[in-house]
């Protein structure tokens, strides 16, 4: 048999061992292997390597699973508390937004009526509303989302991001 034919079949054997062969190639290889001791030996050497790879048994630290489980529990709790704080933050921002809008709406729509009812100057009432209602809720709306970043120590902010 010509040597180039052996080379061709060795390539097919390589592909077969890697699991990258078509059914036709596999069929022709099977027929060829029955008649060619050289290629059969090449094929056997390959399968021997593959079965040799199954002859390793790596030692695993028996405490590893417990350590990983504990780390997972701790991280899950951290993630949950982070999720809850984020949720709380969103709610506080929504409340601050609503307070700001409602305060402004009352000032614009009912400012004069309320001032007359309370017997104070409309400008005075507006100042009071801005100082004690609209202003604080507006600042809460602006500043609260920044609080976690402001309160986090700088070394953590640099992040050991996973």
């Amino acid at each position, binding site marked *: 048999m010509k040597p180039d034919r052996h080379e061709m079949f060795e390539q097919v054997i390589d592909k077969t061992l890697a699991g990258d062969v078509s059914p036709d190639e596999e069929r022709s290889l099977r027929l060829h292997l029955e008649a060619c001791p050289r290629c059969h030996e090449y094929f056997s050497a*390959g399968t021997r*390597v593959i079965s040799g*790879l199954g002859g390793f048994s*790596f030692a*695993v630290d028996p405490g*590893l*699973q417990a350590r*990983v*489980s504990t780390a*997972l529990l701790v991280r899950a709790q951290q993630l949950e508390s982070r999720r809850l704080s984020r949720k709380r933050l969103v709610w506080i921002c929504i409340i601050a937004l609503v307070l700001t809008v409602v305060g402004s709406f009352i000032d614009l729509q009912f400012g004069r009526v309320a001032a007359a009812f309370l017997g104070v100057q409309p400008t005075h009432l507006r100042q009071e509303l801005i100082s004690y209602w609209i202003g604080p809720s507006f600042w809460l709306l602006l500043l609260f989302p920044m609080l976690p970043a402001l309160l986090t120590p700088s070394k953590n902010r640099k992040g050991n991001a996973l």
Partner: protein
Amino acid sequence: MFEYEMAMAREMGTDARQIERGLRQGDVALLQALVEEYQYRLVRYLIYLLGRRDGVDDLVQETWLRVLERGSSYDGQSRFEPWLFTIARNLAFDQLRKRQALSLDTIDCTNQGAQADPPVSSAPSPFTLAARTEDAERLALSLQKLEPIYREALVLRFQEDLSLQEIAAVLGAPVPTVSSRIHRALATLRLQLDGGDHEA
């Protein structure tokens, strides 16, 4: 045969979807079960990738923490293993990059061109320690010398039984590249076994 394959595919699909659902919900009990199921395989993959035993346990832990944090990115359309090994691989390469950066920093600081890496250990390789058969003992030395990309292709194909497409997804390389890495790795190891036989 066809029915069996279909049943396997259905079972695999169900498993993947269950895992996907559990990961999306951050189900720690499911994760603990997965840790138990995949612990040995993850350790083995990382040893093949890194060629050493130290630091592997830390990487295993980091991998599972990453799985917990990024669980929602697993789509459940494909098998869980390739996704898991991709995470482990990325972490391993991050660690290697950090080590290399640290080594360069050390060289810069000392400015003496001294070796920053720890001296080569005379301890037996993890493959030598793990060899349980005569052929495995012969292969151990070659495996240690083989480049990580080839060892990785071998373990994913022949130990993890991943398809070439799945391996390509883990490695981020085209299928022909994966195939050629497997051929080259097998050729190297085949020579080792043949040589051993001739010596014997």
